[in-house]
């Protein structure tokens, strides 16, 4: 593991919601777990998030969504990622996500869904195993 490049993650807040406690907690947790973390800040459009992901060449994009708009947001992100040729990057979603929406998010292409209350260790373990290293 020591020789491997560190996992680089973008924690992003798409849309208009400003509740960022969860996003910041996850950002801190990933950083403490040895990853390189970029936090987008609030009120980002999908285009802005994709631009950061490309510029910073991140391995993972984590979206924090508390407003209930996770399905339309994830859909839009997936479409635009394909358009921009970064459809292979891993996406995970956290926030206020009812259990019944998880299958739909997976269908859209979200690799991991971590609703509020998920242990941080679970999110970290998921990312470590899901990011493929050559």
């Amino acid at each position, binding site marked *: 593991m020591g020789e491997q490049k560190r996992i680089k993650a973008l924690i992003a807040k798409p849309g208009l919601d400003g509740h960022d406690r969860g996003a910041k907690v996850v950002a801190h947790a990933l950083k403490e777990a040895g990853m390189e973390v970029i936090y987008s800040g609030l009120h980002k459009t999908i285009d802005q998030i994709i631009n950061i992901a490309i510029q910073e060449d991140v391995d993972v994009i984590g979206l924090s969504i508390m407003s*209930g708009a996770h399905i339309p947001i994830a859909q839009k992100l997936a479409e635009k990622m394909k358009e921009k040729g970064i459809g292979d990057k891993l996406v995970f979603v956290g926030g206020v996500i009812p259990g019944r929406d998880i299958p739909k998010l997976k269908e859209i292409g979200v690799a991991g869904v971590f609703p509020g209350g998920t242990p941080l260790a679970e999110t970290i373990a998921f990312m470590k195993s899901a990011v493929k290293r050559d």
Partner: protein
Amino acid sequence: MTVARYIKDEKDKILDVVLESGIHVKTMYTPDDLQRIGFDYGKDVADAGQYPYTRGIHAQGYRSRAWTTRQYTGFGTPAETNERFKLMIAHGQTGLNVAFDLPTQMGYDSDDPMAEGEVGRVGMAIDTLRDFEIAFKDIRLDKIGAGLTINAVASIMLAMYQAVGEKYGYDAKVISATPQNDILKEMIGRGAWIFPVEPAVKLIGDTIEYSMTTMPKTNPVSICGYHIRESGATPAQEIAYALLIANAYIDNVLARGYDVDEFVGRFSFNLNVFGNMWEQVAKFRAARKLWARNLKERYNVKKAQNLFLRGLFGGGGLGLTKAQPENNIMRGAYYALVAALSGAQTTALCSFDEAFTIPTPHSALLSLRTLQLLMDEMGLRDTVDPLAGSYFIETITKEMEQKIEEEMAKIEQYGGIVKAVSDGYIQRLVARQAFEMEKGLESGELQKVGVNIHKEGEPMEVELHEYNYASAEKQIASLQQVRKERSAQQVAQTLKELETAAREGKNVMPYLVACCKAYATVGEMAGVFRQTFGEFQEPSLF
């Protein structure tokens, strides 16, 4: 959740308890403790209704009047929200607390591309005065006050509230709105900011200045320690930052040449009940005392009633869990008890399903009933400040006072609250503390029923509020209809005048009222401010 740290021996016996604000709780308190802290009844607490108001701002407490109940309400279209308002009022709710959707809070119209997917989702969509006419139809605006949970564009919404009042025949002098209107806390937590610090604070000053004469029953600002606490602040920090933020708004209005006694009596506070219950009770008692002392000593406030810390103590959202969601009903009841024991003027509870989505009518009414039970059944109206005189409560109230003062001093030393928020100093501090709390939950150092202890049992399904996509379409159609019907020339004219006023640094409120009456949209008015003032640059997290 235990948010206090418990030091135990190997047999689970508690050796020490350290409250979040850093106070050590002893096994037993005696008269010696009061002596140790130099307790002086007259100076430290005094009777309710007497300076420094530690025991409460009214001599009669809840005997003369029970608290105002104000469940946070709003979703979908104004018509759907109006129906829910009436349901809550019909069930005995005594105030309104309006939830706006995110596009409205962020100053975008429902058909703006930025609003896509968000219209009517976490609150009701408001685009023009037409929407307020529907939302407040058949509600006696002279009898019931409305909290408006909006911050960056609170000035616009207050203007619209005046416009709707007048439309329905209520003079601006008889209506009572409580816009949240606390932008510095939005920059610390909750995040619904738009404009940079300086013009954003100036807009708040405008609403305060305008209310003084035009809407004297309105409470133009409700300073929210609440969201700062939810973002990771300790109870002592919650109060310290709220008081400093209030001072920043006072300073803005004082600089316009007013006497502090002309306006500060209309300030109110929104504070959080989540946490160790004793620490919260001590917090509220100390907060009343410190606010009164701050006003008297720092600002030389003369009128006794202007020294009152009037507050909504409630919520507790951070304490709710998705695991074993029905437990949130019981948590709510204890939070409400804390609010009642602390002498809240107004209260509202997070409903048990709010860890999932916005509340159903069923869960919202359960919260309302929880509040009513305390006042009407359990005896919380009997006597004022019932915990006063407890060796324990009086000791930790005094200790809380010191902790809050220490936190205030740290920020003053840093360069003041405006600098601490602009630089992101407070944001980084509370985010770090939030992370530490999560780590405490993961390690088991902090306990939470259903989460890391007493997890037995099957997961349960909760009936959830359904988002209605058709509501968004209806709202957009209605907005487009208003755009067709209104006088384009009048809209352009009033917006032009608003722009000039904003650029020249005039009080924008009368201009906003004119825009609202011309059916200008929230997006158009906020757009003028965006162009004139620019946008807040968020400081970095790390």
